[in-house]
């Protein structure tokens, strides 16, 4: 098992480097956008004096390199700084209550996004795997084709379109579910779940096709192997052949695809959150980009990047663990 541990450490180190690169890219990109925080927040009321005053207060008048390294210095010590928006208001009141720290602002939003991702994953992953196995079992049948057409058309449609179709059928024509997911902290779990269901179903439609088709392909790929032939000759039922014999060997590619889609559930939710007014990290991210609130944008991007890196790492490790040949290398 020492081998796996080395891989984890190596990958974590590489992941850290990736995060560093991401932070540079984001920082430069946000700075390349026209306008800065002071101009965006003041809007039509921007006078040269007030723009200069806000820039001075927030240190935006420093050169870019200085600002990046002072941010990096803080971030390495776990301090992601203060949101410009909130910090600017602390200046208005003449004191910093600490309420503007990026961590404090992101934490509840991140928890909401994770909740949505968890609900979506709990629906989407079993749904996709079962569909995939069934499609492999009844391959080239009407069921297989129907499933393919359904999942492929849902992945090919833009997310907002899927969201509106679901709203039309499940909220407007048949008022079963609410169209606005205004969840908040001290809400009962059942209410929260009910309000989260429509965005979760939308995301399910988006991610199912990929996982389902990979499951189907991986299993079908194995069905021509001699050991499957052997299992069939023993007289096993087709379902048992697939679930007991084919599936365990098809796990590695499936896990990889599942991991990528889980990461998407965390990072790809911006549009869905806006359509359903879900107070997650995606909405915060959009707001922050709009206002050029660099500390918040950076933190959001790092969370997104970290989600990808960690989930991919998990996928690799899981595929090693699911493959005896990799688990016990000679």
């Amino acid at each position: 098992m020492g081998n796996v541990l080395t891989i984890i450490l190596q990958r974590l180190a590489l992941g850290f480097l990736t995060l560093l690169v991401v932070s540079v890219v984001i920082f430069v990109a946000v700075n390349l956008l026209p306008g800065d925080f002071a101009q965006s927040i003041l809007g039509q009321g921007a006078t040269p004096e007030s723009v200069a005053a806000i820039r001075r207060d927030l240190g935006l008048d420093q050169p870019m390199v200085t600002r990046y390294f002072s941010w990096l210095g803080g971030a390495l010590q776990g301090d992601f700084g203060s949101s410009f928006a909130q910090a600017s208001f602390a200046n208005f009141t003449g004191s910093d209550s600490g309420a503007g720290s990026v961590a404090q602002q992101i934490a509840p939003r991140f928890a909401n996004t994770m909740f949505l991702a968890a609900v979506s994953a709990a629906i989407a992953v079993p749904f996709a795997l079962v569909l995939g196995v069934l499609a492999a079992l009844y391959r080239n049948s009407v069921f297989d084709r129907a499933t393919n057409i359904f999942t492929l058309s849902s992945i090919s449609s833009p997310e907002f379109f899927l969201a509106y179709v679901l709203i039309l059928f499940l909220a407007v024509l048949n008022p079963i579910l609410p169209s606005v997911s205004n969840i908040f902290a001290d809400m009962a779990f059942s209410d929260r779940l009910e309000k989260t269901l429509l965005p979760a179903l939308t995301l399910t439609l988006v991610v199912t096709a990929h996982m389902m088709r990979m499951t189907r392909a991986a299993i079908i790929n194995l069905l021509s192997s001699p050991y499957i032939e052997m299992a069939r000759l023993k007289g096993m039922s087709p379902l048992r052949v697939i679930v007991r014999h084919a599936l365990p060997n098809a796990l590695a590619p499936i896990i990889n695809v599942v991991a990528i889609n889980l990461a998407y559930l965390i990072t790809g939710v911006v549009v869905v959150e806006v359509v359903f007014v879900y107070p997650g990290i995606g909405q915060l991210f959009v707001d922050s980009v709009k206002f050029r609130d660099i500390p918040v944008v950076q933190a959001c991007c790092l969370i997104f990047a970290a989600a990808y890196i960690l989930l991919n790492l998990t996928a690799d490790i899981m595929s090693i663990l699911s493959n005896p040949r990799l688990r016990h290398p000679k």
Partner: protein
Amino acid sequence: MNGISRRGLLKTGVAAGVLGLSGMPLRAQSRGGKFTAGIGGANTSDSWDGRTHSDLFMIAAALGGVYDALTEVAADGSLQGELATSWEASPDAKVWTFNLRQGVTFHNGKAFGADDVIESLQMHVAEGSKSAAQPLVAAITEMRKITDHQVQFTLEAGNADFPYLLSDYHLLMYPAGQIEESIAKGIGTGLYEVVAFDPGVRFVGRRVADHYKGDSAGFFDEVELIAINDNTARMNALLTGQIDAVNRIDFRLEPLLRANPNVSIQEVTGNQHYTFPMLTQSAPFNDVNVRRALKYGVDRQEMVDKILLGHGKVGNDSPIGPANQYYHAEMEQLAYDPDRAKFHLKQAGLDSLNIDLSASNAAFEGAVDAAQLYQSSAAPAGININVIQEPADGYWSNVWLVKPFSASYWSGRSTEDWMFSSAYEAGVPWNDSQWDNARFQELLYSARAELDSDKRREQYYEMQQILRDDGGVVIPMFANFVQAISNRVVTPDVVGNTAQMDNNRMLERWSLA
């Protein structure tokens, strides 16, 4: 306001306190229930600091719910007392004495008095306060506490509209000595106390049991504002019955809403207007004939029909609208007349004119389309407008006030002087046409200190004509406020038209059926 003239009330607002209390209910409104509104115009940077308020979500929550100002503009446009009960001016309108309401407490139990007024207004003039209301209070040279419930303001120069200015949504009353805490938690004297507030997400308020407004306002037991910035999501939430009211209806969706029997549309014409300012200090716009040519070269009705889809009225290059008291409705309307435009161009010694028009939808929804309509309507007059589509980001810093001819908008002001001194007085920072007209300037100062309503009307009418004939801002259209409510909600017969959602006060004035 039967029998009481607005200015009479203004000069000595003795009856105002009574009015504020009785509220003149137009229809029996009953207490109770929970009201939920979906509001576009919320941000994660929102806070209870009135100095930063700029969009409906915080204005409706703060001025319309949790906090109060000294005065209040009623739905019919008249001024009434809120935390002030009456006020009196010296004959030159320079010294104003306000009597404050007695027995008012903040949500934390602190009694309201003169110190709170002085400290709250000082927030806006303090060095580096960045308050958007600074120009309003900058003219106050002295604030003096006479008794615990009487304050005297001395102004730099006479201003008959001073009590009006104090109704501004930035000028909220905070508890003295506890302003920081009040801003952090939302502690005011308003009808609703804060139960939950999540910036850019939602606000929940509970009716204060024993409030000085009694049964005349604040009919809901509980109110909730949900931040829904996406147009379609806001409409969906109303159509599915999750919320009772929405602001800012997308004009294209309006027929769909009208078709729904559970929803009714409210449409009011106020002072919100869309403009094309030109910098009049530089060529070619320094020539009044060029400006006139441009005024006749725009098809205003076409813009109302195509940009506002009929939800508005044509403008006459004056920013004073139907929600203003001295709106000059009979002033002859500028018409689309390419020949006349050509004539004025000739007068300027030109056969044709080539200009750039910078526009972005940051200025107003449809600004780029409007600029293109302008381009095609001006072409027959020999005016070649080159439309430059500018990025929305940084538009107000990089284009507006910078480019010679651009698109802009104004939400309008409830008094003439306020509007003029924001954008047309020579030398003020937001004078987006850099316009300087001696006669206009002279009238501005004399009308400001004039307490006689008839003389004032005359002066304001002349000023509107000067703007129409000489001004550097083309104002092709006034845009209506279009909002919708569900049938659960009862609104008074007259709904305010100086701002969205009953002058931002839906939480106070509306009730459930």
